[in-house]
């Protein structure tokens, strides 16, 4: 317990505390601790000299999170249920295919998406269109948010699918067989037997990916860089840009600090909505 708590304290709490401290400074790349009180927070909350980009960043973050979350959860459920209900070899093949995004390095994954949707005839989809005699499409300009939602959603699917598949595998066959004997169709088995038993894994994956999408920026940075013209600039990416592109560490930290607060509040809300106490009191899969 002792060493574990120390490690968590060292690598989680201390960085959070430092982030909060830096958030009250005008620290730039000279790394000077110049405290400015609530200056950064008042700027991003629109009090006094406001940051004109904040409203747009906020909307982008909500759209992105609420877009990627259903792609991940519904997609993960769909693939796991389908792959677990077909012949085991076929199911395993499809699960392996959908797990590939998780197995390759993030940079490779990001650039694959960027290359696929590149707006010249060198991009994958435009090369196909060119072969068919169709003009090139500026995918990343016309549909940037859809592309980053799908890219992150597919990555989320791989993990969600794995967790859901493992949970489905633990459901005693007696239950599904009994339903089938009673005349339940395939859809009814899924609807009335499997899905209710996946409540806790769904909760876990929803919370996990909600936090993940709120805080993730790597793939957006690799695919669109937050553009065009801030169209995919989400909160965490904006914090990254403020800190590591503009070298306004203080302002970047204030954006991050606010994100930490939002994370904690959302986490508590979601856990309450799903009934955290009941989850802890009983088994994860109700039998």
């Amino acid at each position, binding site marked *: 317990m002792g060493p574990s708590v120390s490690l968590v304290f060292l690598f989680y709490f201390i960085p959070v505390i430092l982030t909060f401290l830096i958030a009250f400074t005008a620290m730039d790349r000279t790394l000077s601790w110049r405290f400015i009180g609530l200056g950064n927070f008042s700027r991003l909350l629109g009090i006094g000299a406001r940051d004109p980009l904040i409203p747009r960043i906020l909307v982008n973050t909500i759209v992105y999170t609420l877009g990627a979350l259903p792609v991940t959860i519904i997609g993960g459920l769909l693939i796991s249920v389908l792959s677990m209900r077909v012949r085991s070899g076929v199911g395993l093949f499809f699960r392996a295919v959908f797990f590939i995004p998780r197995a390759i390095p993030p940079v490779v994954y990001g650039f694959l998406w960027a290359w696929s949707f590149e*707006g010249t005839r060198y991009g994958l989809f435009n090369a196909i269109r060119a072969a068919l005699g169709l003009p090139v499409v500026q995918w990343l300009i016309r549909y940037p948010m859809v592309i980053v939602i799908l890219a992150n959603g597919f990555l989320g699917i791989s993990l969600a699918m794995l967790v859901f598949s493992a949970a489905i595998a633990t459901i005693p066959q007696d239950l599904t067989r009994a339903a089938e004997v009673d005349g339940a169709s395939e859809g009814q088995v899924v609807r009335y037997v499997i899905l209710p038993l996946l409540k806790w894994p769904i909760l876990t994956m929803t919370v996990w990916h909600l936090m993940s999408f709120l805080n993730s920026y790597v793939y957006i940075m690799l695919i669109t860089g937050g*553009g*065009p013209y*801030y169209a995919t600039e989400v909160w965490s990416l904006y914090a990254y840009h403020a800190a590591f592109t503009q070298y306004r560490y203080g302002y970047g930290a204030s954006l991050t600090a606010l994100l930490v607060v939002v994370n904690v509040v959302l986490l508590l809300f979601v856990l309450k909505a799903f009934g955290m106490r009941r989850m802890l009191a009983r088994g994860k899969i109700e039998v």
Partner: protein
Amino acid sequence: MKRLLTLVLLILTLVSVIGAEALAQEIETITIRASVIGPGPMGIKKATNLELAAEYLNRFLEACGAPIRVKVEVEFSELKWEPFTEKFYLEFRAGKAPDIVTLRETADLAEGGYILPMTDHVQAFWNLHYYDFYPNLWEGAKWKGEIWGIPHDISPVGIWYRKDVLRALGYTDAEISKLLPEDGNTTLEVVARLAKEAVDAGLVEYGILHRPSSGPGLYATLLAFGAECYDPDKGVLVLNKPALLRFLQWHRDMVVQGVIPPAPPPWATIHGTFVEGKTFSTWASHVGTPAEWMEKYGLSEKALEEDLGFLPFQPTEQEKAKGLGPVSVHDFPLYFVTTQSKYPELAKLLIMFATTPEACAIHSAFTLRPPYRASALAHPLIKDNAYIQRTAPSAAAVRPVPIHPQFWSYQARIFEALKGVEAGVVTPERAVEDLVAWFLAEVPDGLVIE
């Protein structure tokens, strides 16, 4: 006589550095550490010139009978500016900054106490050494009345275009020279019209490609539209709304006409397609870029001489009518001496020996960039280099990028606006309004011209 006096001054400086006590001691080797950035591989001579300088300085010290010698440890970095600059600040914070560093954030470095002023040094050795540096270079080395560093590189940005494409369009060499005279005196509209002709004829894939990121080329284009971003008299940033609107609208029109792509391709595509003849004109390069094209993209000397043409950025017709001439800018990187240097006077002398006409010629011959001091043009290394001799006058005409702590973040915002307008996701009018909102929030002392 003046040079003799300066030489005496140099010796006196050395004596003061060494100290009278040291004269009686054995020979001591002093290590001077330098951190030099390319960026990329082409700037290597800026580093090796410091090593060469140590040899000359040691000979000089020996001739003076001084009991010290200098050893130089140079770290050359091919990193981009941002990580290199960040590394310097981290080293400084840790108390391990080098004695000499090449950076470009003069205002930040001077304000933060990271570098030493060099005005006295330059004045002391003006007649001996610094007398023939192009005067405009010193403008890029000054902040609040002091000279803070020594220029050692110059890359005037401009417009490269393909003469062979124009020939394929039916223009004779005489017509090309008349339309796009080497000394400038044309307009941006002429370049754009020729680019459109090349695109429409299917001779090239891209008419014009500009930088994929903010940089001096962007600033030069802004100036071509009369969008001055800095008021040197007041020392404040300026946002010229009408000029910015013209700048953005023109780029949007070029995209609609198929001359400029809606999203700027990456550097490799810009350089590669231009060298291959698939791009008519690149606005992402400078006088010395052919050295990189030869090194990385297989450009031949014959193609450089016969098929490529270079111009400074040309004003728009409207600005030309107001009297604006060709524009070229450069962000001068400088050799700085850091405040953590234990031997700042020796470091300054080392920099002086690293910027001799010979060192300047070595750098110029390797990079094809114009020399930063006039006398280097007569050096045997480059006196017969037709390309360098022909393009050398561009060095004297180039303008420095404004030295202001917020200049580059301002340029980055303008570039985002440009990308958004070119992509068609924001109108030029809206982009200007967004820029004004940012400017008012972040540059409270700036000037907005309605």
